[in-house]
């Protein structure tokens, strides 16, 4: 099991959000955590479009999901079946008003920080042994050409733009986009299988 991905409890994996919202409103912390985990990838993707550094993305994600936690506990979700739209609205509001948000963040952190720490998917420290997901990626990267490895580093580790990637690889912006997509799909396929050493 990966050290970097916290699975939601199995019993909640296929539960409709409306059911989870109701349970969260009744004080079920497991349902609350499952809901937040479900939205983590989408919220981070929203943040990555606007922010570059991993720390900024993490802070934005925390801001959004602290507000979602607050709304769940206050039973303030008017239409639980439309929770996706609600979370997106929170993302847009947070993006629009980061200054005001910083002040409010401190208060929210005091109230709901403990719950957030239980939800957050902690990355291993640089001196720690990495989990399965990371060594699987390390294994898949070894199969790529150096050019493709550079694309992964520039695009996903360093969040460089197509223009910057094109400059680094001495190619056109359009070709950088093609290389990026091709490499992404190759990695997706590799990561969908077991590691080469395990399948032998």
């Amino acid at each position, binding site marked *: 099991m990966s050290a970097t991905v916290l699975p939601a409890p199995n019993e909640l994996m296929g539960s409709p959000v409306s059911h989870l919202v109701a349970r969260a409103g009744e004080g079920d912390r497991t349902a609350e955590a499952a809901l937040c985990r479900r939205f983590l990838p989408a919220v981070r993707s929203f943040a990555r479009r606007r922010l570059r550094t991993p720390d900024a993305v993490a802070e934005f994600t925390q801001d959004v999901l602290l507000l979602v936690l607050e709304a769940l506990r206050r039973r303030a979700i008017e239409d639980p079946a439309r929770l996706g739209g609600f979370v997106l609205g929170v993302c847009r509001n947070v993006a629009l008003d980061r200054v005001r948000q910083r002040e409010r963040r401190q208060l929210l952190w005091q109230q709901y920080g403990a719950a957030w720490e239980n939800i957050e998917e902690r990355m291993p420290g640089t001196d720690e042994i990495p989990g399965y997901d990371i060594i699987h990626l390390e294994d898949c990267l070894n199969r790529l050409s150096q050019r493709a490895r550079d694309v992964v580093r520039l695009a996903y580790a360093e969040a460089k*733009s197509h223009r910057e990637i094109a400059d680094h690889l001495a190619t056109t912006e359009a070709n950088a986009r093609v290389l990026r997509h091709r490499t992404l799909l190759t990695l997706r396929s590799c990561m969908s299988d077991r590691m080469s050493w395990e399948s032998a």
Partner: protein
Amino acid sequence: MTSQDEDPRDGQAWLARLDDYVAGQVPSAESEEFEEELFTRAASEQPDADTAFYDALARNAAWLASHFFGFRGGSTRAEVDALITSGKKRVHWMDLGAPGPKRLSDWPDGTQIVVTRVGVDLRGTSDVQVHVSFDGQNNVKTFRDCEYDPTDGALYAVCHEPLARLAFRQPRVVAQVTAVRDGRREIIGVYDARNM
């Protein structure tokens, strides 16, 4: 339809769209529509495997980028020496020496990084590849674009211990090093290693 039973091509198209969105390549009007879909998928009963993959890739790639060997097909002797002498990591050094039959032994508990020196001389070659099998016949994996040390021509493979354990703790590991010299690919050396 869930992310589990969708046509794989739909998943590929979605990943490409997500990548364009994150990279800022989608116009504002379209991106709002995309965001609606992103969060509708997030709210579905089954987790969106493609978005989760993309998210994990960004986080894990950033973590690997903090290690000098994370995105390289090999390291230099100087980099390895600096890693060992820094004392920041518990490093296991394994010198396979010249090609031929080898005996592998385990490394100490708590090892974080394994460095393997492959004692071939690749100077004057390009496009170095290492083909690995567990029986000398059926290829398990090919390491591409391997980087050799310019001073001694050897390969210094550096990886995290869990990955090295998977690769080297097999009963038998056969590694064939090939490279292009004068326009032709040739076999530089074959290692046939067995665990003690």
